[in-house]
């Protein structure tokens, strides 16, 4: 028993100071990507061709823009080409309310806005989520599990993962949605009572991630399931997800 107390004292209070204070991440951390482009020289061809992901794409004027939903946050995606330079910032905040908000000419994104007042009254102080992995590598789930540890401690905001969709207010989807998991995903979604939230976590759930184009996956959450929060990352840092959830609930 004494050992138990002694170990407890040794552990101290490791809970993250987020969101009261800014949390700094190591210098090499690859957070929200940024793009500096020279509007006169539209050099979309070179970087897009050399990138291992769909991070850089052309907008309607054939100028390069970033698609954070397709970003794999690999060091190779930080490239420089004439008129177009992609880099990673250390900003972990990048969850958005619409798929379109993830597409940006500079890397700046419109972060997720709070739900309307009625939804906030229902979910604002108590949100129960059901996690469904559908064709993932399990990296995103590992970071969702980390949200429950004493450092990130998501429960202090009244957010918890629950065992059944019948107990849940929303669903967190990870993975590129494999053909073998599609039916189970749709059943789980259908089992959650309205009003319900849908949160797509990670590059796979948003765009297919590294598996984009494989005949075995649907390249992310199908249109039949409307998404309320898009959390980019490969996998998203726990703070990216937590920041997005708190913004959605109007707590930030």
């Amino acid at each position, binding site marked *: 028993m004494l050992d138990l107390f002694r170990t407890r004292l040794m552990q101290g209070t490791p809970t993250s100071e987020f969101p009261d204070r800014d949390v700094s991440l190591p210098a*090499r951390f690859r957070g929200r990507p940024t793009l500096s482009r020279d509007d006169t020289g539209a050099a979309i061809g070179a970087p897009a061709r050399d990138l291992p992901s769909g991070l850089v794409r052309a907008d309607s004027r054939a100028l390069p823009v970033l698609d954070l939903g397709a970003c794999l946050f*690999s060091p190779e995606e930080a490239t420089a080409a004439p008129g177009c330079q992609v880099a990673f910032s250390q900003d972990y905040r990048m969850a958005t309310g619409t798929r379109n908000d993830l597409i940006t000419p500079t890397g700046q994104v419109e972060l997720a806005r709070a739900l309307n007042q009625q939804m906030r009254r229902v979910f604002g102080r108590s949100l129960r989520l059901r996690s469904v992995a559908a*064709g993932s*590598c399990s990296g*995103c789930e590992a970071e969702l599990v980390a949200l429950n*540890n004493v450092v990130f401690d998501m429960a202090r905001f009244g957010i918890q993962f629950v065992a059944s*969709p019948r107990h849940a207010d929303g669903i967190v989807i990870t993975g590129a949605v*494999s053909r*073998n998991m599609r039916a189970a995903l749709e059943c789980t979604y259908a089992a959650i009572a309205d009003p319900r939230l849908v949160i797509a976590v990670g590059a796979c759930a948003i765009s297919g991630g590294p598996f984009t184009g494989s005949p075995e996956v649907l390249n992310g959450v199908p249109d039949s399931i409307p998404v309320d929060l898009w959390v980019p990352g490969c996998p998203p840092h726990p703070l990216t997800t937590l920041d997005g959830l708190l913004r959605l609930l109007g707590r930030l």
Partner: protein
Amino acid sequence: MSGRDEALRLRNRRAAPLARVPVLDGDRFAETIADAVSGGDRIISLFGLVETPDTLRLVAVLGDDEQGQLRAISSLVSQQLPPLSRGCPQAARFEREIAEQCGAAVAGFQAPKPVRRHPPDHAPSGWPARPHDRDWFPFTSIAGEEVHEVAVGPVHAGVIEPGHFRFQAHGEEVLSLDIMLGYQHRGVERLLEALDRRRAVLVAESIAGDTVIAHTSAWCGAIEALARCQKSPRAQALRGIALELERLANHIGDLGTLAGDVAYQPAAAYFGRLRGECLNLLMLVSGNRYGRGLVRPGGVGFDVPAEMAAEIGLRVGQLREALPPVASLLLDAPSVQSRFEGTGVVSAELCGVHGFVGPVARSAGVLRDVRHDYPYGVYRFVQIPVASAWAGDVFARALVRWLEIQRSLEFVTEQLRALPRGECRVPCGALAPGELVVALEEGWRGEVVHVAVTDDAGRIRRHKVTDPSFRNWDAVALAMRGGQISDFPLCNKSFNLSYAGHDL
């Protein structure tokens, strides 16, 4: 001369011309595998390779763990496989995998049990396509008064990957357990074969998200061997450090979840935090908590400058102080011991027959560790003692993890103190044409196998991945027999196998 003597001798990460792999006729191929396995060899890999529009070449890689010797044989088949699993249970899962991937028929089966439930994606083009039903799975069914069936999944209670478990139970006693997987199937092997190297490395990092370093190192090991690329000693040391940090993070996390599963909250909370410390060390080096971006063909993508090495050394030192009291909290608690001991036993004999690997085998006294048996990279110079226990139960699997945690901490501390100088990455050029290479790596779950074969133009023609979970899922089913259904979560957690790594 036996087929085994004829076989092409290989070493871990040494490429050899595919043409030198002897071609045996089907029956002799199957016999050679069965004889070798009964003589103590292990099946390292067994897969199909499209040879012509009508023929499939089967390639078997056998491993003699004691000698660190790999042997390869092959056989040409048209539509029907030789009887691979007859007298050789270790080949059964590989046989089912080949039948599914290549669309081959298996003698004696109308249709073998699916492994991942997908239409063939490595079939010779001239073979007739058969209709495929993703939902078909022949479950074991046991009839009898008071025998009942319990179905769980694919969506489970926690934040876990999808899989379906079906128990045949008599009261609390489990008579048999069927595990249906494939929900995470993403077509990884096809992507590794079709994509260029810059994209393929990102797929290799995403085979199993908690085994990023091990899978990417094995993938790079295969590519580097085919390109005759020699990594610098510094790169090898840094990869070793990263691999052990990955092992630390996962083993520590596992001890935490095991504590959580027997409702021992203090240890669960402390281990959960300490796991994060290891992930943060990987982030310090690579910018990602799972080490993505670190391992690249030719070495590592990020160097560790002296100040960073000192910082890691300091934080590893703190872990070495913080972990032992938490471990003894867990492993010395009588209430924990009584739940862990005697639960989910896997015997050494079963490990031998089925070829289980990693901590599952080592906790049953079967000393199998790629770092020791087929040393590569930094492990040729620094030997990590193989950790083992004998009981093969949940407690033994926890104990082996704890022993490995201590040894990995020592290894990392020692390596950081004397990092070799030099480049951390060298160029890695074009691949040699028409060659075969076997790259083994001891991931935290056990042996990770990548086998690559190049075509005449030096492109990847086949890339076969075998995650340790592929071998060990049968251990979960066998460990549950005769046990109680209510022990399943604890038992399953003590294996903590990857669904993604199995499903590919």
